């Protein structure tokens, strides 16, 4: 999130696109209602009339997978009615940059496409002699980003958009008029999004669409504004920061690639940009290596740089792991507090792939579907060779530790009770696992150095490891005096400092009252709560907050001033996101986005894998042709072998989409073991419209079979008026909605919807496309 939950109260219009906020983030409604008491409007954009849409002011039904078409329409509406905030985009974004003549866009494809990957050399600015991009501050030049964008989105006129999205013109114009009015300087528009737009083969571009719209309307960096991702789990923000992902190291440092970064020097040279805060990347990497390998990491062995495994350039994300597991290339697997047998795409293929494992270690609170794949229904256990260790873990209040919520707040959890019987905290399990592996490698083995050299002494024998030592290591300390670092501005690249995750530095820098444990509410102010816990980076609560005031330093919205220039100095209500120390506003007006090389926001973003501008493409399996360009799908998708052949719209005519209910959570293993929650939502069900029910003779609450190319599941049908057929082009398209919480374990078992979802993902992040695929439904 760029802002945080409490900041919603300052919004004037809140657009919830691809998020069912009342059901899946109920507490957000508390702050949305505070905003609505001041007259704010809530717009819910969702294929179904969800509980959010039921309480929202405006509901716009939309065909799953067509979010860019809608956002493109809103961008076009902003351009045609000149609702953009001119002064904001002139100073804070790259709208005025002139593009290189080699860049072009035709028939839905950007320049530089070579079969399924883009060669991004042509996506660059037109540089003058000494290498700075040429700008046209009048925004008239047809090659400047502003004009190119205007032409690009001119194709998204209202009728085409309504044709693609399947909504009627009045609804679209009402949404456009309401939301794009927040382009006014003193108005704050807020976009909430979640899996509804990310789980698609153009998920990253969907999110870019929201960012571009917010930049045009000047809503980034202001209180009540921003692009706010409402994440699904308690510490998904923290686990992403700690880099439990194949392509990064803690603190979003890219993993070294074998071909391009053989040595530390190569890594620093290729990965460190000249300008922006990322120019300190060598400090972050060396500090990380010192934190991991302590005294072993010295200047002459490149701080053990080579002990980090190097990637082979191939994708190793969730889908790739299960694809290679299906081919038998993976023998052992750790599944730590996760349930891919229900949550993963194409679940039947993934459960089958698990059978190729020699051994699996699963750690969880309950017996999950993943840990018991070998005794799932319709499977003969005796033919499965996998050895499974199922370790009991402690629940959230049975152990200490910190978690980061969507608003980047790192909050501490205290241990209230002992875990039951043999259950242990994950910290203890990891500590014991390391000690056992170290013992076995001390007796010899292949290249044991990185294991034996680890800087790891958090506890003796079988006692609970001291979590404060781990927190100090993450926070960073001086290797000489072991004194905790104040924050990441103190990091050095000569090995004198060690820091496990540079963005978290400062969260545990004082043993007396560590910032993450602070509990001081804000007395007066606009709800920043600067002394409640710690928000990475540097306890900054609203990112890019230089944009909260105009280039001269006057706040855009005097009612909620954040950072402004008054009486010859900066008035700071939040940690500033720019070099503010005694520099007048004019000097900082051109550099509000300190993490980007241009130091200005990117309307034109050359860094994306599938295009500098968001462009609408149909989902992988779609019932209609792409009405905007001949390019049916996102050209940069990797088509995995496990996906098999795509569904044809004759055989599977209806759009399938998966979502959640507020009584259950994720794979349901925690909530389906609670009797009262299960009683409220006992069985797997699918939602279809009344019209489809009549056409297929499916009566309400009757058994149905839903099938796709990948598999078939049984469920109860809920024939409802909350889901309507959509007029797309000249065809009526039907939607089948499925919650995905059920699995074959727990008190309330049921078929898993993810048996139906495809193994195809987004080019940038390979997040699977759960939200739009083709399926068929018939009476059981």
């Amino acid at each position, binding site marked *: 999130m760029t802002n945080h939950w409490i900041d919603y109260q300052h919004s004037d219009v809140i657009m919830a696109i691809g998020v069912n906020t009342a059901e899946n983030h109920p507490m957000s409604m508390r702050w949305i209602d505070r905003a609505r008491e001041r007259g704010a409007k809530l717009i819910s954009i969702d294929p179904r009339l969800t509980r959010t849409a039921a309480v929202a002011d405006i509901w716009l039904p939309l065909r799953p997978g067509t979010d860019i078409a809608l956002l493109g329409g809103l961008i076009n509406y902003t351009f045609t009615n000149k609702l953009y905030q001119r002064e904001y985009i002139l100073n804070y974004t790259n709208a005025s940059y002139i593009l290189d003549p080699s860049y072009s866009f035709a028939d839905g494809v950007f320049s530089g496409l070579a079969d399924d990957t883009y060669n991004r050399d042509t996506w660059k600015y037109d540089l003058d002699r000494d290498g700075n991009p040429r700008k046209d501050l009048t925004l008239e030049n047809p090659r400047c980003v502003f004009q190119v964008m205007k032409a690009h989105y001119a194709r998204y006129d209202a009728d085409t958009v309504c044709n693609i999205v399947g909504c009627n013109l009045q609804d679209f114009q009402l949404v456009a008029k309401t939301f794009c009015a927040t382009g006014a300087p003193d108005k704050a528009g807020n976009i909430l999004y979640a899996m509804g737009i990310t789980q698609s083969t153009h998920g990253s571009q969907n999110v870019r669409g929201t960012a571009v719209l917010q930049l045009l309307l000047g809503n980034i960096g202001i209180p009540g504004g921003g692009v706010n991702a409402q994440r699904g789990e308690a510490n998904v923000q923290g686990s992403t920061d700690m880099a*439990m992902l194949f392509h990064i190291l803690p603190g979003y440092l890219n993993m070294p690639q074998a071909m391009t970064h053989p040595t530390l020097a190569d890594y620093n040279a290729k990965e460190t940009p000249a300008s922006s805060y990322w120019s300190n990347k060598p400090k972050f990497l060396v500090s990380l290596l010192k934190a991991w390998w302590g005294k072993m990491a010295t200047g002459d062995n490149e701080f053990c740089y080579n002990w980090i495994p190097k990637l082979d350039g191939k994708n190793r994300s*969730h889908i790739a792991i299960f694809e290679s597991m299906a081919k038998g290339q993976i023998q052992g697997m750790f599944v730590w507090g996760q349930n891919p047998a229900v949550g993963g795409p194409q679940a039947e293929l993934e459960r089958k792939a698990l059978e190729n494992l020699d051994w699996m270690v699963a750690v969880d609170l309950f017996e999950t579907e993943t840990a018991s794949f070998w005794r799932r229904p319709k499977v003969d256990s005796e033919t499965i060779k996998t050895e499974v260790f199922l370790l009991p873990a402690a629940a959230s209040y049975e152990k200490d530790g910190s978690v980061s919520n969507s608003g980047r707040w790192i909050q501490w959890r205290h241990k209230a009770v002992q875990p039951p019987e043999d259950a242990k905290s994950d910290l203890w399990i990891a500590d014991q696992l390391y000690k056992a592996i170290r013992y076995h490698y001390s007796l010899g083995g292949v290249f044991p150095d990185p294991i034996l050299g680890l800087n790891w002494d958090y506890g003796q024998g079988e006692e609970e490891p001291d979590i404060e030592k781990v927190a100090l290591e993450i926070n960073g300390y001086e290797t000489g005096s072991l004194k905790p670092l104040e924050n990441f501005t103190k990091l050095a690249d000569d090995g004198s400092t060690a820091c496990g995750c540079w963005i978290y530095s400062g969260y545990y820098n004082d043993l007396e009252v560590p910032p993450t444990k602070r509990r001081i509410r804000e007395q007066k102010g606009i709800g920043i709560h600067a002394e409640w816990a710690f928000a990475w980076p540097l306890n900054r609560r609203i990112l890019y907050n230089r944009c909260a005031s105009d280039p001269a330093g006057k706040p855009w919205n005097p009612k909620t001033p954040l950072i402004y220039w008054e009486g010859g100095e900066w008035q700071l209500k939040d940690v500033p996101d720019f070099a503010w120390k005694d520099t007048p506003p004019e000097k900082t007006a051109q550099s509000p986005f300190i993490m980007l090389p241009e130091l200005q926001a990117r309307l034109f973003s050359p860094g994306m894998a599938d295009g500098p501008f968001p462009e609408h493409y149909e989902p992988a399996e779609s019932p209609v042709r792409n009405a905007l360009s001949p390019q049916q799908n996102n050209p940069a998708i990797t088509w995995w072998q496990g996906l098999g052949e795509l569904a044809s719209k004759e055989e599977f005519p209806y759009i399938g989409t998966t979502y959640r209910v507020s009584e259950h959570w994720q794979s349901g293993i925690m909530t389906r073991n*609670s009797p009262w929650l299960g009683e409220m939502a006992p069985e797997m069900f699918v939602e279809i419209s009344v019209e489809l029910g009549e056409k297929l003779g499916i009566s309400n609450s009757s058994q149905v079979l839903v099938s796709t190319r990948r598999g078939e599941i049984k469920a109860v049908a809920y024939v409802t008026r909350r889901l309507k057929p959509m007029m797309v082009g000249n065809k009526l398209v039907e939607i089948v909605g499925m919650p995905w919480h059920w699995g074959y374990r727990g008190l309330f078992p049921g078929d898993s919807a993810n048996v139906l979802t495809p193994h195809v993902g987004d080019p940038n992040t390979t997040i699977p496309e759960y939200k739009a695929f083709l399926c068929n439904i018939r009476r059981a």
Partner: protein
Amino acid sequence: MKVTRREFFKLTGLAALTAAVVGCDWDEDPILSQPLTDAKEVTTICPYCSCGCGAICYVANGKLVSVSGDPDHPINEGALCSKGASLLNLNTVYNFRTHNAEINPNRLTKVLYRAPYSKVWEEKNWRWAMDKIAKRVKETRDASFEAQADGVTVNRTMAIAHLGSAALDNEENYLLAKLMRSLGIVNLDHHARL
């Protein structure tokens, strides 16, 4: 008669005055003979969605009595949604037959092991499990370790995968990242990607 005040009890305000005047002596008052139970209020953060609502766990002599919203927490200000309100059930549920609170029977409380081709779980202890897991990791890593790949030191193993978790705390995720990378694992991912 001299109205004296019981020296050893320091009461405050009106209570002190009236106690002295009315002169009640507490010793034989039955209420004072009852034992005091001690309880602890501990703050935690809800493990479900990512709002980060604060909750207070009320623990009486080692048993979890109730989990309610943390009134000081600025995000939820004492309120919890239906999943948050049923947080107690992760640890303690009410048994309708014996009419007392007990540990949730579905919770895993023992280390379970499934031998190859077996049909059942067997209960083991921690030390045995850790030792066996370490052996398995060592065997698989040693068999599949690549030190070099066309001239470049890579130090990796493709044969072990790790699906880490968004349900774990930051410190736990950090230790796992550190451990798995030191083993040379590149197949490392978790459900932030799903």
